[in-house]
């Protein structure tokens, strides 16, 4: 089976945030470099901020691409991580509750994060960047499946 991916809007949202932060970074590094060491300092600051932005762009892209989730017969599989790969398997019967959150940036892009909670606090099953309608559907589906297969502690 194929892993399902977060909405491409998540990548758009991440890039927007990255762009805004890098603009601020560019201004700070460029101006402070320029004030301290004149023109070469300013150019150096701008160059450094560009390098930083490019690096984080690649890292963010890798992270975005690493997210994936898979609904199987009896469990949900979530994978993530660029440098440190993580894969979490949660049986539907073990879900205590499902939680849908959307921050300000998420709402701007009509996105939401679905998080599964089990009785174990270490469980870390989170799917970010779903379209809010998809997130609501997934939440309802998970809740139904969880109820159908619920088992006691």
């Amino acid at each position, binding site marked *: 089976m194929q892993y399902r991916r977060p909405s491409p809007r998540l990548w758009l949202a991440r890039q927007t945030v990255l762009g805004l932060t890098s603009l601020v970074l560019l201004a700070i590094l460029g101006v402070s470099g320029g004030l301290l060491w004149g023109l070469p300092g300013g150019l150096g600051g701008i160059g450094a901020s560009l390098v930083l932005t490019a690096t984080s762009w690649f890292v963010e892209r890798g992270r975005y691409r690493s997210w994936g989730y898979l609904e199987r017969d*009896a469990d949900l599989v979530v994978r993530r*991580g660029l440098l*440190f*790969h993580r894969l979490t398997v949660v049986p539907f019967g*073990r879900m205590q509750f499902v939680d849908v959150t959307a921050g300000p940036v998420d709402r701007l892009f009509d996105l939401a994060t679905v998080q599964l909670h089990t*009785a174990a606090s270490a469980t870390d099953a989170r799917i970010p960047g779903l379209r809010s309608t998809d997130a609501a559907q997934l939440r309802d589906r998970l809740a139904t499946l969880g109820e159908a297969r619920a088992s006691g502690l």
Partner: protein
Amino acid sequence: MPLASSQAPALAGTWCRLHPLSPVARTVISLGVVVAAGLTSLSGQQSSSGQTVYMVAIAAAAVLVVAAAVVSWLVTRWRVVGDELQIDTGLVYRQSLRFPLRRVQAVDVVAPLTARILGLAEVRVVSAGTGHRQHGRLAYLSNQDAAAVRAQLLALAHGLAAETPEPPARPLFRVDNGRLIAASLLRGAWLLVLVLVAVAAILAAVDPAGAGGAVRQGGSDAATSLISAVVTGIVALGLDAARSVNGDFDFTIGQAPDGLRLHRGLLQKRHETIPYGRIQAVRLIQPLLWRPFGWARVELDVARQPEARHQGEARQLAHLLAPVATLDQARWLVAQVAPGAPATLTRSGAPPRRAWFRAPLSYHYLSAWHDDRWLVTQTGRVRPATVIVPLEKVQSIRLSSGPLLRALHLANLRIDTAGRRWVAAALCRDADEATALVGQLGDLASRARRISW
């Protein structure tokens, strides 16, 4: 509504108060503190008018403490209806607690020193939850009532008739008190103290050779502060040892048809019952300084949140199978609660040799084993620990790998249960094997849940 003061009707569904002496048992200590603090400052007062003011203040504080306890006793009532324990409490903020007994994780009877003198005990019902108010506490009942309440709550928790008498427990294991004391004193932290002593000794040896007065001054200052650190450390370790001896003295464990019975305590007696099927994990640990003697500690995990820290509850409620036992006894105990699961693993479950590059120190302890009912993993460097998890309790399975592990084609596998303390970790497994294990364990766990042994 008539409130009976004898406890028996509460089990039949009539609202009851707690034992009339409970305000006394609850306030004796705080009253003592108030009076002692007051008298200490009283002796510092010179003028007679100042003394009078102080006396009045002490009396008022004492009256307040007693009144609060009495009011709390007056407004608290409890009963058992159907298979639910109900507690109503609070004067200003009314609180109504309902505990479905089928969800009960454990029932404890605790008797602190003051309550023991008065012949009282507290019944504590533990359910799986997140809030620190999740425990149903009945403080206090008389000893017989506490035993009766516990028997009935456990019977109800098992879905039996409420009148089912508490089944007799078969003694399983008893910890030797001498060994307990020795083991409590053998803490790894002593090594740190030893290092500090060595540093202090070196400083003291170097110091007299120092020629300049200023140098000598500085050297002896450092030595003094080191010595005081050492003394503090020794006192803290001694207190810690005394606390664990006090908590686990006369540790006995019995096997009853409805669960494991634990009795322990020197000043404060505790009787805990863990229903079968509530055990989320079993852990066997061998601390560094115990290994020469071949001792081990066996712990149990049930689904419960550690309580507020200031009460030290998390520590007190640590469920133990044995605070200290020989390795053979520990293996035998594990076999009693987890039949078929090995308590210590052989090297046949070891990760591939290349895992040594990732975990050079702990490699010779890493191991994992599973059948269709249990998963056993072994980890640790100075304190090797074996965690045994019943597969029907698995909450989630996690697979992770960092750059180094991936370069070695290895992965870490972690199994979570609802017990919040330990995670069964099969570290540095071959990546393909780990991926296969994820699927396999998932299937086995869902089968184990359906069979529910």
